[in-house]
């Protein structure tokens, strides 16, 4: 459902503007990869901004949430989440694998419904219980 060759979520290479989200202030950061490999960050009000930018350049990850098809329950969609944050360049494959699942009620909230989704090593977990319905 999602084109896997496209960059759904942007990935940062050498230089970019970004907004720190560690606290509500939202400092506008400028980050630039120097020749030595170190990242130069400006615009931050505290050191947490530097760590944030470094993480965003090194290994950006996002938790993934969504819904899966389910039959035999009182609803047709089951809310799910990734067991941990997924590397952003793997998110399209992760989503596509999620959409391919066809689950059957009953399902308990917290139940692992798929493991090692799209080879990421990350599981998919039900975030709502769905009772079986005739």
């Amino acid at each position: 459902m999602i084109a896997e060759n496209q960059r759904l979520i942007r990935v940062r290479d050498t230089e970019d503007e970004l907004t720190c989200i560690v606290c509500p202030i939202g400092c506008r950061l400028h980050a630039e990869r120097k020749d030595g490999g170190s990242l130069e960050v400006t615009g931050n009000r505290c050191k947490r901004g530097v760590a944030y930018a470094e993480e965003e350049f090194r290994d950006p990850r996002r938790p993934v949430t969504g819904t899966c098809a389910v039959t035999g329950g009182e609803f047709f969609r089951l809310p799910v989440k990734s067991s941990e944050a997924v590397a952003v360049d793997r998110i399209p494959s992760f989503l596509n694998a999620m959409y391919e699942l066809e689950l059957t009620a009953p399902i308990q909230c917290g139940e692992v419904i798929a493991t090692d989704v799209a080879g990421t090593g990350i599981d998919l977990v039900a975030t709502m219980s769905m009772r079986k319905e005739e």
Partner: protein
Amino acid sequence: MDGEKHMDRYNVAIVGAGVSGAAVARRLSAYDIRIALVDREADVSFGTSKANSGIIHGGFHHNLRYLKAQLEIQGAGMYPQLHRELGFPYRRCGIVVAAFTNEELITAEHLYRQGVENDSAGIELCGADRIRELEPKLHQDVIGGVYAPAGGIIEPYRFVFALVENAEQNGLTVLRDFEVTDASRAGDRFALRARDGRSIDADFVVNAAGLYADEVSGIFGAEEFAISPRKGEYHLLDRRTVACPQRVVFPIPTSVSKGMLVIPTVEGTVLLGPTADPLDDKEDLTTSRDRLSEIVASAQQLVPSVSASDIITSFSGLRPTLPDGDFMIRESDVVPGLIHVAGIQSPGLTAAPAVAEYVKDLLKSAGCSLTEKTRFSSHLPAVRRTRLMDDTEIASSWDENHDAGSVVCRCETVTREEIRDAIAAGHTTIDGIKFYCRGSAGRCQGAFCIPRMLEIIAEETGVPVTEITKRGPGSELVDRTLPGTPAVRSRRDHPLRAGAGAGAPRETDVVVIGGGAAGMAAAIEVAARGFDPLIVDRERTLGGVLRQCVHNGFGIHEYDEELTGPEYAERYVAEVAEAGIPVLADTTVLGIDRTDAGFHTRLLSREGGLEIVHSRAIALAMGSRERNRGGIQIPGSRPAGVMTAGAAQRLINVEGFVPGRRAVIIGSGDIGLIMARRFKLIGADVQAVIEIQPVPSGITRNIVQCLDDFSIPLYLGHVVTAIHGGDRVTGVSVAPLENGVPRTDRGFEIDCDTVLLSVGLIPENELSRPLGVELHRQTNGPVVDSRLMTSVRGVFASGNVLHIHDLVDFVAEESRRCGRTIADYLQDRDGLEEADLVAGSNVRYVVPGRIRVGEENRVYLRSMIAQVGATVEVRRGETVIASEKQHHVQPSEMITIAVDGAPLSPGDRVEVSVR
């Protein structure tokens, strides 16, 4: 229902199922002839007849030398009997024409004399006192006017539906989606062919094609004439407006039109308009910014209490006009057997019954043999209307069919049974159902009920949801379903009160209205203190809006971890179950009445029918609804694909229905941002987010992770100046805002098929209002004291119904506190010493409005300013009572602080400010 093959030969074919065609069809159905009524639209009454003033005129606006005046007077006189027979919404409320100057009064005298000549029953010329007595809502500067008691109001589409339904009972065939593209004459018969290839034969044809009567005449090779559309724009006001007059209020007419009116509708809403603009384009149903503001200004001159904040929707209609301004009803000179009913503009609705008589006579003289049927059924059974029923009627309706207990449209109290009635009567589009039974016609404009209506239409008709339309092909509402989710739905009746096994209790300590985070949290605390709460919720599952918020970010304050909405809800559901709190799901509260001992709450559900629960206290926890298009008056057309972000969220996350492929989101509220990301995660696109303010209204994290991550452009300080598209959205016009005015010269267009609105939430106090609960002007929630008790003793409020929260953790915290104070109230621990708390500098509001003396209080406030580093200060006069440093403040983030009531005395006035 649509005709079958063997039925394709008719004596009379009527082209155009507006009010004229429908009235002719009904009149002719009294005779022993075969009649077909065909229309190009997906339903009858979808042209001029769906968007007009809905007035039965008083017979004084036109001179009798015009055919339209003669038919107006004759037609008006026929309505009382038609109303008795067909039961459509109609009220003879009378018309006043208000004059404000001596010159206007002279015109009024002229209208009066014309009315007398026309035999307008009971017409009066009024002075200032008399006219104000007749209509107290009129502006005090009125000096006189005309009163025509014979005038009235009608729901025009309901009238057309009733005519058609009754004619169908008497054998009429209705062919919808039948656009006549070709006609020929073979011998003495006409052959009519539709665009889709269907064809019918008829001896006579009535051309009642409204705006297209000229084109239909051309198709038949008959005379040439030109119909010009004249556009009328309208605003519709919520039923709760204070500006609802008792009578139709007209200004003094000008040379071009009867002016813009203030019209009380039979349904209790108020219609303002119309404008009158000549056009070329017969499809142009757009509204414009300038006209929409003119309407409000003009209405306020007549009825000053009209307020733009009561607008729930705006629309326009086109009136078909001929150059001489009169009706043209006659047999064609060129094509015998073809009867034109053309140029039926105002007062066409009033005249319709007389037009039908007139056409009947024309057909007779043209040689159509008309013998009266021996069995003509003139009466229609009444259309079921739960909103207007008393309790006995509701109960017996439910006894007949339990679907009459399942409320689908909350604003208008429309049940599943009423929607089934509409479908059974042939209305299978969202608009058709709306016109028939008012489902989605109320103040939320379908945000809550359209997902349900889609499901019901799919279940009842077997049509896939992807083919269900707003008003015909091209106006589909669902683009596709998510993988693995069926588009075809069969009906499943869910067990609602699983485990409970019994109906509602007759008596309980507290009825908690709403089973979202607020209701559950309050109920849990009430139960923990040994009292009995009962949770009532309209949905099938507890959790409220959390159920559809499948993203994460909930519970950071309360649980110190990031939960998704359903997970957060699940924790509360578990607590509710553990405490053994009874829950009535899929149950609607119809109303709450005060009694000596407390309250009667009237409940309606499919499973239990009408039930009444007595309680000592009420906890209001109904949450909020989304501000919609009517609330911010975006001009343009009204295509399918415009919806609130929350409605889209429900469609996608709960139903698995994808509403479109490319969205523009208006407003940068958090729900809109979350939906921008959701669109991307389901393989759809988001073209832009348009925010009127210079700063985003959602939180920074959402801007970054929902927009920046996906490179979705955010236009700050921009507005959408128009929505484009006929059947489905095709794009929007956007312009930067300068000093509050859109600079259209620097504007641009964005293509899209979906427009999502994320422009704020409104506390849902529809049940609080009739109970007498005083509401706060800033928060739109109840005014509460330190216990979160409203102005009505024993009624408490918490969560979004009280004021809009940005975090569910705060909703839960506030509601738990509310549950505790309810328990205190039930224990009669009631001696209260309070000080008043008011909003000071840079504070939009503070809740509650009173705090407790001698105790610790928690208060919530919203800053009006955004800044890094701020101090929230609570002062009594010059004395600082409490002061708390904030790292950062902004309007979108609620601030909560503790205020120690120890230094206070009862009656003190304490002010909270942000510096």
